[in-house]
């Protein structure tokens, strides 16, 4: 079974935000929620880098571990999904997540945050694949159609890679070999407890 991961090659990201837009459009993400975002570090200074970040679908996911109602689970593909029917909007996943992925539609509304929303790796939720309920709660299920996440598919510079962890790591290693430099797979150490040696 494939182990799905994201990898953002920061040396190629041009901060065009196409991944952010693609995600919002594909899943009709509610206003105010960004399942994916592009963060620019050292903006405007020498050595500036942009990194596209969403849920990293961690190995031994901290959000799933701290959820008081156990509504977050990992699929056979290594994708971390959750059930909005079971979620009570307590905010614990959001304290535990190293990547700021979980978000709530009603931040600051007397603690009734509403159901948590986060990147699904374009894999929907616990409902039947491609069903209307699934689309309304979680957005499109591209994985069930044999397609990869749209953010990575749309990436204009192929900076954002999605797919089986070993394959995308291999692609990244080859790039680094060819061009002679690479600033590493951002977030991998925190999410998967491994880095790509190059």
């Amino acid at each position, binding site marked *: 079974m494939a182990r799905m991961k994201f990898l953002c090659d920061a040396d190629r990201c041009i901060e065009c935000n196409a991944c952010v837009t693609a995600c919002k459009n594909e899943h009709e993400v509610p206003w105010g929620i960004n399942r994916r*975002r592009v963060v620019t570090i050292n903006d405007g200074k020498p050595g500036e880098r942009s990194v596209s970040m969403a849920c990293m679908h961690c190995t031994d996911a901290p959000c799933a571990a*701290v*959820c008081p109602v156990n509504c977050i689970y990992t699929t056979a593909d290594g994708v971390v999904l959750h059930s909005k029917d079971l979620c*009570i909007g307590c905010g614990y996943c959001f304290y535990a997540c*190293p990547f700021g992925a979980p978000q709530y539609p009603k931040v*600051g509304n007397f603690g009734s945050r509403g159901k948590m929303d986060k990147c699904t790796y374009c894999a929907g939720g616990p409902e039947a694949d491609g069903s209307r309920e699934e689309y309304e709660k979680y957005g499109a299920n591209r994985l069930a159609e044999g397609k990869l996440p749209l953010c990575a598919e749309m990436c204009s510079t192929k900076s954002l890679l999605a797919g089986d962890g070993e394959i995308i790591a291999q692609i990244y290693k080859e790039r680094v070999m060819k061009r002679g430099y690479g600033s590493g797979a951002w977030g991998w150490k925190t999410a998967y407890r491994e880095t790509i040696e190059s």
Partner: protein
Amino acid sequence: MASFARFIRLTLSGLAFLLVISMAGPCGAQQINPTASSVNEQQLLQEFDRIQGRVSIPDQRSGILIQPAGREWREFRDLTLRWIGGITILGMLAVLIIFYLSRGMVRLESGRSGRTIVRFNSFERFVHWMTATCFIVLAISGLNITFGRPLLLPLIGHEAFSDWSQWAKYAHNFLSFPFTIGVVLIFLMWIAGNIPNKVDVDWLKRGGGLVGHDHPRAYRFNAGQKAIYWIVVIGGGLVAATGYALMFPFYLSGIEGMQLAQIVHSIVAMLFIAAMLAHIYIGTIGMEGAFEAMGSGTVDVNWAREHHALWLEEQNARTSPRPQPSASAAE
């Protein structure tokens, strides 16, 4: 001739311009490594504990890219807190059961006099019970967040547990308001009787008369009650402050502040629950004649003499000129 001189001048200045352009242009095309000066993930994490940048979307909080501190918080929430809670609450229950089995109820040694004296007026009792009811609901719904998943979820299943937890969370959020008001009122209305003094030292030295048949003298509140008072005021203040920080995310702090708030909130809450178990015990089955104080608001004069002798003297001095407790209090 003038036109020829102008032509020469123009040509010369044109050549000079081209020379300047060529000098200012790219100096050689040697291979450079763009990552040599670029930001480095490991270095940033070591330096700042988290990586932050700029985002172009309106949600500026999403500018925090990586923040691995959630891992330590997870350890606390899933392991440390469960041990702290388990040990303090079950430990307190065990101590109370052992104490009850060995000591039994603290009896009214001189029996009932049949005359009563007012101990808490209706407003005091209302505030006490409002705070107490809120506390019980808050404690149960809070314990559900920490212990529900391993203990209750396997028994009642996912759907039922989520429904219950959702309501428990609403109750927890909304009852925090009357609870906080109760804590503030308790602080204000009983502060006068709860300043520690010399009598408390003697009371504590004699173990509060819990063991044996000793009856150390006390004013309106003895050292044990003062301890409960300060636990309620300080503990209640801490859980309220940290609780509101969690209820209104990002108003006071970022994620790291909320992790800290949750740690303080949950540890104080566990200790608070353990202390309240002892308070409930001594106010009900632990001592004969104690519950009436908060129940009907009056206590037997003999109870007052045994447990709060100095307070009884004060009350008598105030209500009648005679040194003996008068019947007026019972009327």
